[in-house]
């Protein structure tokens, strides 16, 4: 199962939350893990919109030793010049509270970030069912 959603408006963030919740329930994630995944998706979708100037998210079910949900957020925005700095708690380049990336990483089982200034940013997160 894989599904791609566009992230162009704040209403799209609501759609992302709904679609991720549906996928998390189908993958039998517990309620707390569902909530963590949907919250993380919401934070990253907002980053995609606010900093990446819009993009997309791929929602995938992963069947390995365990079942999980993997989300890939992609944008072709300005990218992140200093990833280490961007991952610091409390750091923000915008109007947010600076919890987006570091906070999201804490909610997830796996977190990967790739970015090139001028080319865009990709964030891949995974949550496994217990």
């Amino acid at each position, binding site marked *: 199962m894989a599904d791609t959603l566009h992230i162009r408006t*704040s*209403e799209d963030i609501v759609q992302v939350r709904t679609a991720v919740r549906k996928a998390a329930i189908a993958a039998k994630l517990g309620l*707390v893990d569902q*909530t963590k995944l949907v*919250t993380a998706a919401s934070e990253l979708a907002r980053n995609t919109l606010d900093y990446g100037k819009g993009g997309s998210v791929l929602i995938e079910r992963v069947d390995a030793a365990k079942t999980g949900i993997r989300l890939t957020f992609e944008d072709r925005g300005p990218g992140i010049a200093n990833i280490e700095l961007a991952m610091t*708690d409390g750091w923000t380049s915008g109007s947010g509270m600076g*919890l987006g990336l570091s906070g999201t990483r804490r909610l997830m089982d796996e977190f990967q970030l790739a970015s090139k200034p001028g080319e865009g940013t990709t964030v891949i997160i995974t949550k496994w069912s217990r």
Partner: protein
Amino acid sequence: MDRIPILRMGDFLLITVQVDMHDRLAISLQDDLTEQIVRYNARGVLIDISSLDVVDSFIGRMLGNIAAMSRVLDAQTVVVGMQPAVAITLVELGLSLPGIRTALNVERGMQILRAETARNNPELLEEEPVAGPDGMV
């Protein structure tokens, strides 16, 4: 455009957030609420988020803004009914809702608002020694 309804109950305003929030909805809620605090001389605002299964940093910031705006207009805000999974997620995210008063449910939230209102306005207490804003003892 859809809006979040604001109910008036004596000196207090009650908001039950039942739909997933997007930006425009959050901004219209801030506008409507501040306008009604002034119009009705409201002393307290109770926000019930028991229907929200996700509170991200955007919604957290909106709740903080509402609490701050209400405070400037001399009204107290209490957020009630947070789901346990939401509380766990918020704290792990690093968002402990600073500056926002919370209570477990509507009843306790109302108790806090009544107590705060009485403490800040002792003259109201003398006029109405037992009856609360809703007429309940």
